[in-house]
């Protein structure tokens, strides 16, 4: 009896591990990756050109470029190595990396699409046999359903695109330009003297 219970527990643990592993792998494949980097370089144009060229070589592309910012899409499968490449082009002052699971949304849209499409087939069957008085009503339903199907297809295309390509956002300086506060709120007096603005001012005033 105990022997069978032990086997049952072991099987359950094994099953849980398998589910965890498979969902993990699934999660990796069905996630949208967004990475943001603040990159400090001496020549922004030169580095931007190099990054765009590298993106092209890995079947990626840039979709926005200004003097301060560069936004690219690269295949998600090579996102991490591409981010490493970008990091090597200067000093990474700040970085973030997020991966949001879109698998549930995609599955739900795919299921909705399937049910709507089979419903549409049914409507066409109904339409064939419909009396003249009810044709208009069925046609209206068909039109609405077709619109819904197109919308779902669009969403699915968007989700698949988001999963397939990682979004890489490179800024060449901090976006938030608010300087840190020097409010002197610390209970420890010397800590209140630690301030970049005051340090710079001290060097400007050293001759006075």
């Amino acid at each position, binding site marked *: 009896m105990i022997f069978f219970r032990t086997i049952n527990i072991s099987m359950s643990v094994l099953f849980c591990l398998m589910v965890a592993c498979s969902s993990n792998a699934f999660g990796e494949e069905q996630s949208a990756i967004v990475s943001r980097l*603040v990159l*400090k*370089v*001496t020549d922004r144009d030169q580095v931007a050109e190099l990054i765009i060229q590298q993106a092209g070589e890995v079947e990626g592309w840039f979709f926005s470029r200004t003097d301060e910012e560069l936004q690219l899409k690269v295949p998600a499968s090579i996102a991490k190595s591409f981010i490493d490449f970008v990091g090597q082009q*200067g*000093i990474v*002052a*700040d970085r973030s990396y997020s991966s949001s699971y879109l698998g549930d949304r995609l599955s739900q849209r795919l299921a909705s699409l399937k049910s709507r499409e089979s419903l549409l087939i049914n409507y066409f069957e109904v339409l064939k046999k419909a009396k003249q008085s009810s044709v208009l009503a069925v046609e209206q339903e068909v039109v609405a359903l077709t619109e819904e199907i197109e919308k779902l297809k669009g969403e699915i295309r968007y989700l698949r695109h988001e999963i397939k390509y990682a979004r890489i956002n490179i800024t060449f*300086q*901090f976006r*938030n*330009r*608010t*300087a*840190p*506060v*020097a*409010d002197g709120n*610390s209970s*420890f*007096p*010397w*800590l209140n*003297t*630690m*301030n*970049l*603005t005051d*340090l*710079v001012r*001290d*060097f400007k005033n*050293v001759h006075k």
Partner: protein
Amino acid sequence: MYINKMIINIILAVIIIVAASGCGHSLPKEQNIPQGFASYEETETIRAVSSSGVMYRIKREKNEPYAELAFWKEALKKRMLDAGYIYVKDGDIKVGKRSGYLLELAAPLGTQDFTYLIAVCLQDNKQLVIVEAAGEMVAFLEKRQTIISTIEQLEL
């Protein structure tokens, strides 16, 4: 009479020399300044600057309220991050022969982005020795290793 005058003159000369050396400020020890930096005359604070505008300053503060380095590590990091600095890295460092803490931060300043490096250690438990260095990020990176090496060899 002549001997007395001579003694008075010698004493005056000595007084003038001693006074002169006491009033003026000398330059800080060479090993306390990063290589390639120009130093200002030493006061209670040591200051130096590189040709690319990277600033370097050593100052002392009383260890008040009295606390160990571990306490100041946490307090310093919390205060700077609360103030809005961007954390880059931190870790232990030798400040001369003493155990110290190194905190590297980043922050926008005007149109530029700056690196702000702070190293702190305790001297005889009564004083905190604080080394600060800051400069535009790219310019700072070129001097970073020199600055770190200088901190590690500080003669306090």
